[in-house]
Structure formats: structure tokens, C-alpha cells
């Protein structure tokens, strides 16, 4: 990396102090209080006055649609969106076509990521928990772990068979990997298109109760306690689940959990106009659940935020609600949206960093992005109040299925360095 560019980042705010950072040879060559460092010869100066410096974040739950559905997203475009969103690493779910249930797929995904984004964002593939995600036979987790899978999940196709799920937890533990569960009772959720609540009953859409999610949350917690093994619960959306998780953690059960910005900022009324860009699974919940979820985030019930970035092409979303797929994109809006929670005082900046970086690194055993002298330079600068419009000029995903499309948001990633290279 001798020919890597040099940067002198000055006046950035990091953990409440103003700092200067010198980046050379891909690493943080020096870091100190603002004004204490001399820029090296030829270094490009980045004036970071008024900007916050964060370690590159980790999104532990994305769908990059590659291989198989590259008209929605591919590894190159997905990692581009990640870079613009402040993410230095993303964990990609296995519901591709073919499914990521063997080393050949994992390796080809990693190769593609390295080819397009040699300095990162890092792709951390998640291996399928069962062959073809069919919920019948265990996937070859040893082979997948060796090939580079960071965790295992059947996300998108919840495991109906509890015996198989138990064995999957046990077998994954053999390789030091955590199982991530998409908690959903398939019978309670069958044929549903939104939350079951006042809105669904008024607008005549079949709804899914929060019980569909919480039932499998309870199942997984019971198994984790009984087996004394970890389990990670994906995209938790409702009060009943949050209560179960809080109680389990209090007892010392090895359960970790994630939630998404939309479950804290939007509610089921977003579906009143049958907006397919507000349709995801689990669905947006009633206001009371959203309030409870925010309180749970404040109290530290959730280990991490994730986007559940789920791109779909416009032609797939432009139908009546019951004919559209679940999911919204989120890589380029998530940090902005959740920083709003810091701004309004719901969480501290420390908790924000913990949830977007420290905890996913710890839970899944990933490489941390350290902001210290000698570490690889993986960090981004964030303008906390800059306003911008979510639209074609600001979006790098191939898809645009987000309820925030066309909306003005506050707070923006203005620069992103990965392995000392400025990618944004």
C-alpha cells in the first residue's frame, strides 16, 4: 500500500473531542488533538470542522440479491450503497438463487466483492442454515464456515421444524458460529400483507399478529436457555418480542437481538394508502408497539441496529399491495435515521456506535474498525445536520423501494475511508 494516498483530516469530532487524523499507507498513521499534528507532505487536507468521525459501521442483515436476482441489486451496487451509507462491512443473507448453501457460492460472492471493492466494504456472507433454505436438511456449515460464512440463517424462509432448528443451533456452535433466526410462525403469518391491527381491519388487508413473531422468539429463547447456546434474533418489531428478550437477557440466556430503523420510526398507518414501499416482513406495527420498541432501544434491550436492506425492482412493487413482495432498502438511510434517535436524546452517541459497530463485531466475531494509531483506516465522517433528499442523485442501490424516497432527511455521510482509501 505504499502508493496509497495520504490524508490529513482536521477538526473532526470523535467521542466528544476535536481530533486530527493522518492517514498514510492505508492506516491511521497518527491521531491527536486538533492542531497537534503536522500534515505529511502531499497529503490531501480534509476539513472536518462540524463533522463527526465514526468507525465504519457493520450492517449485520442485508440482502444483496447476488447471485440470481441481480436486477434488484448485486454485490457491486450493494457494497456501493453500503459505502455511501457509512458501512464498512455487511452481512449478506443466503436467500439468493442459487442459495448460499455451499462453498462454491460463498467463494464466488467473496471474489466478486474483492474485485469490485478491494478496500471494502467487506462482504460477510451468511450461510444457509438448511439446504436450499428448505428447512429439511442441515446445510454443510463446516464447509461454509471454512469458505468464509460469518453466521447461519434461514432468513426469508423461517424454520418451521423446531427439532431441526435445535440441531442447527448445536451444529453451528461446533464451528463457533451463531444462528440468526427470522422469527415467524408460518401458519399465523400465511397469506398476510401487513400487521393485523386497526388499519388492516379498516382497509381490508389480511394481517399478521405480533404473536407470529413472538411465538418463535419464545421458542428460540427456550432453546438457547436449555442448550446454553447463543441465538441471534433478526429484525425484531414488536412489544411482545422485546419483553421476552429483555426477560431472557435478565436471566442470562445467550440471546442477542437486532431491530431496524423502520420499526422505531414508522407504524402501520404507513400502509393506509396501500403503499407497497412500506410493506416488509415483519410488518410495521401499531403506534403502541413502536413506542415500546423505542423504550426498549433506550434501555439497551437490543444489541444492534440492522437495515434488513431488501431491494426489489420497481416493476415488482408497482402492483396492488397483496401482489407485491416484502422488503425495503435501507443501506443509505439507516445511519441518518438512527442518528435522529441520538439527536432527539433517545440514545447516546456511545450506544449508537455500540449498536452499529461494537456489538455486531462482538456477536459475530468480525474484524473491528478501530480508530487508533496504527489501525487500518476504516472510518467515515458524518454531517449531523445536513439535509438531503432521498432520490436518484443520492441513491446507489439498484432499487428504490423505500418509504423515504423523495423525502428530506437530516444528517449525511460526507466522506468514507476504507483501508485508507477514500471511497466516498
Amino acid at each position, binding site marked *: 500500500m505504499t502508493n496509497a494516498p495520504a490524508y490529513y483530516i482536521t477538526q473532526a469530532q470523535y467521542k466528544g473531542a476535536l481530533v486530527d487524523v493522518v492517514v498514510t499507507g492505508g492506516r491511521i498513521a497518527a491521531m491527536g488533538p486538533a492542531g497537534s499534528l503536522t500534515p505529511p507532505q502531499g497529503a490531501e487536507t480534509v476539513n472536518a470542522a462540524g463533522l463527526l468521525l465514526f468507525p465504519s459501521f457493520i450492517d449485520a442483515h442485508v440482502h444483496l440479491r447476488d447471485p440470481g436476482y441481480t436486477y434488484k441489486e448485486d454485490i457491486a451496487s450493494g457494497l456501493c450503497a453500503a459505502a455511501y451509507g457509512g458501512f464498512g462491512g455487511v452481512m449478506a443473507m443466503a436467500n439468493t438463487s442459487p442459495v448460499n448453501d455451499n462453498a462454491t457460492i460463498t467463494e464466488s460472492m467473496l471474489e466478486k466483492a474483492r474485485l469490485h471493492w478491494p478496500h471494502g466494504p467487506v462482504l460477510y456472507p451468511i450461510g444457509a442454515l438448511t439446504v436450499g433454505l428448505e428447512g429439511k436438511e442441515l446445510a454443510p456449515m463446516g464447509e461454509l464456515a471454512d469458505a468464509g460464512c460469518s453466521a447461519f440463517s434461514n432468513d426469508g424462509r423461517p424454520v418451521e421444524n423446531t427439532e431441526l432448528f435445535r440441531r442447527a443451533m448445536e451444529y453451528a456452535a461446533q464451528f463457533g458460529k451463531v444462528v440468526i433466526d427470522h422469527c415467524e410462525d408460518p401458519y399465523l403469518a400465511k397469506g398476510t400483507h401487513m400487521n*393485523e*391491527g*386497526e388499519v*388492516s*381491519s*379498516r*382497509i*381490508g*388487508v*389480511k*394481517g399478521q*399478529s405480533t404473536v407470529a413473531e413472538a411465538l418463535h422468539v419464545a421458542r428460540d429463547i427456550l432453546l438457547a436457555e436449555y442448550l446454553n447456546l447463543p441465538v441471534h434474533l433478526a429484525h425484531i418489531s414488536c412489544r411482545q418480542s422485546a419483553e421476552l428478550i429483555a426477560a431472557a437477557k435478565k436471566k442470562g440466556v445467550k440471546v442477542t437481538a437486532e431491530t431496524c430503523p423502520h420499526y422505531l420510526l414508522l407504524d402501520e398507518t404507513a400502509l393506509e*394508502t*396501500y403503499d407497497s414501499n412500506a410493506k416488509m416482513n415483519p410488518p410495521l406495527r401499531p403506534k403502541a408497539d413502536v413506542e415500546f420498541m423505542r423504550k426498549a432501544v433506550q434501555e439497551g434491550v437490543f444489541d444492534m441496529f440492522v437495515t434488513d436492506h431488501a431491494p426489489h425492482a420497481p*416493476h415488482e412493487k*408497482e*402492483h*396492488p*399491495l*397483496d*401482489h407485491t413482495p416484502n422488503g425495503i432498502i435501507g443501506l443509505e438511510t439507516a445511519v441518518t435515521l438512527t442518528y435522529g434517535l441520538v439527536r432527539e436524546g433517545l440514545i447516546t452517541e456511545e450506544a449508537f456506535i455500540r449498536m452499529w459497530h461494537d456489538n455486531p463485531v462482538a456477536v459475530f466475531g468480525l474484524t473491528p474498525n478501530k480508530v487508533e494509531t496504527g489501525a487500518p483506516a476504516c472510518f467515515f465522517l458524518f454531517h449531523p445536520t445536513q439535509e438531503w433528499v432521498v432520490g436518484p442523485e443520492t441513491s446507489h442501490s439498484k432499487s428504490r423501494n423505500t418509504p423515504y424516497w423523495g423525502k428530506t432527511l437530516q444528517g449525511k455521510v460526507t466522506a468514507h475511508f476504507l483501508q485508507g482509501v477514500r471511497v466516498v
Partner: protein
Amino acid sequence: MSDKPWPHKDLLDVTDLTPSEALHILRTAEQFQEINARPIKKVPTLRGKSVVLFFAEDSTRTRLSFDVAGKRLSADTFSLSKSGSSMNKGETLKDTALTLQAMSPDIIVIRHSSSGAAAFLAQRLECSVVNAGDGWHAHPTQALLDAFTLYQQWGGNFAGKTVSIFGDIAHSRVARSNVMLLSRLGVNVRLFAPRTLLPAHVSTWPATVCHTLEEAAEGADALMCLRLQLERQQAGLLPDLREYATRFCLGQRHLAMAAPGAVIMHPGPINRGIEISSELADAPQSRILDQVAAGVATRMALLFIYGSRSSGPAET
């Protein structure tokens, strides 16, 4: 409100309408009802206007009713159904709608199995969209014709009356629209159904949920029965039809408990002996066929109002 432009492009649900707008529609229907009694049942009111009847789901009476209504107003009506159209070749709703719009109709009447389909069209098309039933969501023209039937029955007085709705409320667009419209007109609405056929959050509706058929029937001014879709049994919502008929079929004894002068209604098609007894369907108090006649007059009123986007007096 005469001569003012009608403030709505589309009729997606009765919740689009203020009570006075709904009453205006009923009064307009009353004027058109008279035409239907003439020997020559045709007026030139909508001459040169075209109405597309886009029925992506099966229908007998609603489609026919709109067709008759349009023709009696001298509009040109064109029918499109799912079978025999490009929708069967996989054309999307958006593209079918845009294709229809390119033929410059004044009104598109749509029936579709998806809740929100009418709103989906209305958001994309410049012509008026009239919802003839979308999924479980709404059936505003049915609710208006039901209200018109009661308007005639009660001499225009809705306040303080009680209408009880029986049957599969959860999956019924007729129930949703009727609850919303009748409650806005000052009617007390009661609902009765087995719990599995009530919507999950029905307590938020402007209606009283009754626990027995008798409680719902007692003293009511109208008993409105809904069709039981036979697939509800397959979906595990009911044990079997025999049990349903035994426990939940509306019969003569329920009418006897209702208020003096109470009437029987049903949007059709009826399942005799399942949700309504044969005797009750044929009883003198039955208004089931009057509802069909009211449907033509109400839809003439709606085509006139949305076709001319005017609330002025009809040229009859």
C-alpha cells in the same frame, strides 16, 4: 350544493363523502328512480360519455347494474373482464389501466380482488375511477344503494334507526362500507358473526358488536345478512356449513324479534338455508329485490355525478 362542481374525481369508498354529499347522491338516485318506471327508460343525460366496466373479478348484479345504469343515461358502456383479456396473459393492473385510459373513457368502474386496487388506479389515471368492490376493503356503490333502499323505506330519516349486519363481516367489503356510511348517516349499527368471521380489531369500528343473533336482532329496524363464502370453511374458520346453518342462519323468529316494520336485506347472491332461511328471503318484509332496483337508480346517480363532475340538478 346544486350547480357546484362535484369535489371528488373518484369514488373509492364512502369515507370520501361527507354526510351531505351522500344524501345528495341518494336524492339524485330518487330522481333517477322515476325514469326506471317510465315506458321509455332512457334519457340523453350522458350522451357521448363513455364508461368502461373493468371487472377483474366475477360479478353478475353489480356489472349488469352499472351497464343498465349507463345505457339508461345514454352513455356508451364497454365491458372488460379478466377472462378473455390480456390480464390472463400476465398484463399488470397498471398496464391494463393505462391501456384503458389511452382510449379516453370518462369513467372507469373497477371490480378487483385486491384491496386497494381502485386506489391504485385512481392514483395513476386522469379519468374518474368508481370502485365497484376491491378485495375485502370497500364497496361504496353497494353501501349507497343499501342506504337508498333504507332512505325510501324510512322516508329519508336515518337518525336513531338501528341496522344489524349478520354474517362474514371480516371478509366483507359490503359490511365495511355499510358500517362507515350508515354510521355517518346517524344509524346505530350492530354487528353479529362468529368470532372467526369478525375482523381482529372490530372494536375500533363505529358499530356495536353483539354476542348473539338474538341480541343483534332485538328491536332492529333492518336486518342485513351477508353471503357466506363457502371457502371460509376450508380456511379453517368454520367447522362445517351444517353447524353454521344451525347456529347462525337468520330466520323468521329473528324478524319477529325486530322492530315493527323491520326489513330484510342481503347484497346477494344468497345462500338459501345457510345464512338466510328461504322463508325469510321470500318474506314480504324482504327488500332483496328492491335493493337490485335501487342499485340501478343509485348507479345512474353516481355515473351522472362523476360523469359530469357536477352536483347540479339532473336533466331528467
